């Protein structure tokens, strides 16, 4: 297939494997939207493996290739999510599609989220070929602040070839975090690449300051009523935390607290679990919603946000300025426990253990609701702007196709 393009508008390819939730895709989408807003001639194509329910409304300049979905079952282990085909066939199918996308889209810039070589190393071939055929193309790895425990990630990256792939195939690493909170590069063995690693700050949604008062009116809150918002992104594994939250809220209601609780389950929670939450909430001041538009506004309107410790929801809640109580996911990855602890150490939130009881959460809620709000300095939250600026300059060099510029921009190997 020809990969020469008559129109030479800038083309950016974003990859995320999305073996569990929607976080990687959401982060890539924010970056793509900002990039295309600043570079109206550019086309951003997102490759994602999200479950079938989570589509992306195409918008000018942005579209998606959704691969047949996979499900993460353990570290470095994934299975077909829907199709009942052998693992080897699904791997080959995804590789073939990726191959086709790289060959015909011929990106100037590739942004890979999290795993340098993708699931099953499925990016190794396409990235190698891109390197050979389009030496001026730039390849970026984007990492969230915390991946897993350093030991687990380092072992996996060594065994699965990500270490080597990163050094051979990538130009630069963007850490969507703040070195002052966590030194991602040091933790995951990227010290030798220090000159190529850039901390951009946390990537979170932009938008005008939300109108918290209007949202409180929309929710029908009366004077003196307090609002607790319970949310956890897609919600695929949020049921344990949310059922504890509903029970804690009922406990406080019984104790006479004028508390209204809004639980937003997220689109990925199983229908049976949603029904169980509704049963638990029956007859209380707890409302269960599957999905809610403008959740950032609701966060700003809340007196407290109860969540797990996922990257997107946590940074959005901090940006909204509401007090946060975190009950992190217990595992298998240490990511959320680590992040909750790091943020708690800086006074950004109250962290409870993964299996905290309703009593314990109720106590933390009372604590939070009765303590004066203290303005704690936030980590760098302008990652979207800074990462986009870096992507734009890489893109400019790549579309100019000048190997000299490229050379100065540097390559690891």
């Amino acid at each position, binding site marked *: 297939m020809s990969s020469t393009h*008559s129109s030479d508008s800038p083309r950016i390819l974003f990859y995320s494997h999305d073996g569990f939730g929607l976080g990687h895709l959401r982060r890539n989408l924010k970056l793509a939207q900002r990039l295309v807003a600043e570079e109206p001639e550019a086309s951003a*194509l997102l490759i994602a493996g999200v479950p079938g*329910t989570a589509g992306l409304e195409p918008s000018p300049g942005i*579209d998606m290739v959704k691969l047949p979905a996979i499900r993460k079952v353990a570290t470095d282990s994934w299975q077909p999510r829907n*199709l009942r085909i052998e693992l080897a066939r699904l791997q080959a*199918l995804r590789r073939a*599609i990726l191959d086709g*996308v790289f060959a015909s889209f011929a990106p100037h810039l590739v942004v890979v989220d999290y795993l340098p070589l993708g699931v099953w190393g499925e990016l190794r071939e396409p990235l190698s070929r891109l390197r050979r055929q389009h030496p001026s193309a730039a390849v970026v790895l984007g990492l969230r602040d915390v991946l897993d425990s350093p030991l687990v990630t380092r072992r996996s990256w060594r065994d699965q070839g990500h270490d080597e792939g990163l050094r051979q195939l990538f130009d630069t690493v963007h850490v969507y975090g703040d070195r002052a909170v966590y030194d991602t590069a040091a933790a995951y063995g990227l010290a030798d690449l220090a000159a190529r690693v850039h901390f951009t700050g946390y990537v979170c949604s932009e938008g005008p300051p939300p109108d918290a008062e209007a949202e409180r009116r929309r929710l029908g809150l009366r004077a003196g009523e307090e609002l607790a918002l319970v949310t956890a992104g897609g919600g695929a594994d949020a049921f344990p935390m949310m059922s504890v939250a509903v029970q804690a809220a009922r406990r406080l209601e019984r104790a006479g607290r004028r508390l209204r609780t809004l639980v937003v389950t997220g689109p990925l929670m199983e229908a049976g679990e949603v029904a169980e939450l509704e049963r638990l909430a029956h007859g209380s001041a707890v409302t269960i919603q599957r999905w809610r538009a403008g959740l950032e506004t609701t966060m700003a309107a809340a007196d407290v946000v109860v969540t797990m410790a996922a990257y997107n929801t946590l940074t959005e809640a901090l940006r909204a300025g509401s007090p946060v109580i975190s009950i992190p996911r217990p595992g298998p990855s240490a990511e959320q426990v680590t992040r909750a602890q790091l943020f708690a150490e800086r006074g950004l939130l109250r962290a409870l253990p993964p299996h905290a009881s309703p009593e314990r959460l109720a106590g933390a809620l009372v604590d939070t609701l009765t303590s004066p709000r203290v303005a704690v300095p936030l980590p760098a939250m302008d990652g979207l702007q800074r990462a986009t600026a870096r992507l734009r300059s890489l893109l400019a060099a790549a579309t100019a196709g000048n190997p000299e510029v490229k050379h100065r921009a540097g390559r690891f190997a």
Partner: protein
Amino acid sequence: MPDRRYALFTHDAYGLGHVRRSVRIVRALAERDPGASILLITGSPATHWLRSLPPGADHLHLPTIVTSGEGPTRPATLALGVAELAALRGGITQRALELLEPDVLLVDNFPLGTRLELLPALRELRHRPTRTALGLRDVVDPPEKVQRDWQRDGLYGVVERYYDRVLVYGTREVLDAGEAYGLPPEVSDKLAYCGYVTESPAALRRPAAVRSELGLAGGFLLATVGGGGDGRPLLDAFLGALEHFPERHALLVTGELMADADRAAIRESAGSRPNVLVRDHVANLPELMAAADVVVAMAGYNTSAEILATGARAVLVPRSWKSGEHGAREKSRVDGEQLVRAEGLARLGAVRTLHPAKLAPDALAEAMTAALGSGNGHSPHPPMRLALDGAARVAEELVRLATEGAAR
């Protein structure tokens, strides 16, 4: 028997009809072949319909290419040329099909996709065990347009060489595809009429319940215009026609895509009359059809099939475009596909039809009166031999093809 694999390729035509039909077929196929894996390949932006895919099914989303009526086909999103986008879509599809090696591939309506992008994939599949089926809407387009397009793009040869079966989502009584499209005998032999692909009305609530929810004691006249983007003239005529039925209640559904100014005008005009309800959107259109005395609608595939399935008495007025819309150069132009469908159904006595050039309150009222006096309403039209279990029959054909392929 090993678990079978199926792939469907559904193009991204404007509107939701194609994806809705494909999802219904996937559901019927999963029911008929419960161990199967089914991959739906589409670039349609209407992804919310894909939420109802059954277990065992997944979808592969391609970058979108939108076809709009007669206008040029253009990339909807990416700043790429049409040829580049077609190459991108074709390349992905070919590789996916080569690796999935489905037992059967079903392609929707366009034998080579929207921009002929399927040719490499179809060529490759001829060397493999995959059997192929082309699914055609009851009326693809006006016959002369189909003949012109198929001649121009060499599609007669393509269907003869690359397809094992041609499944029509309609009946021969409405349109004889072989004759209308001038199919050579080698292609005609592959035809199978499967009937309309639509929801079964079995699950609908009783008319009395639906009427009482609307606050009505008795029947009513219903006008629906699909999304409503171009529905204003029909609703205006309908409101005028209501003068002839002063005793009857009426319900107008404007559709989500109607322009605000048009919707406001309709609401104002309706507001001056007693007994007239206006809704922007309803979730249970088939129930309303089943509960109505007469349905006035355009003649799109899904609306027509729902009318047939609910057995509603109906007047169909094919869509027409004013000059300048959808590339129309003449003063106005009728949607030929809808005209052929409406006339075919009227010939069978299943509906009444009114040509859009004659659309006026009095003429519409006359057609509605005639429809009110016909049949018993509220029961499907068995004498019309209009098969309405299209999805199940398409699924049956696909399973049969898979079995043949395995035996080959």
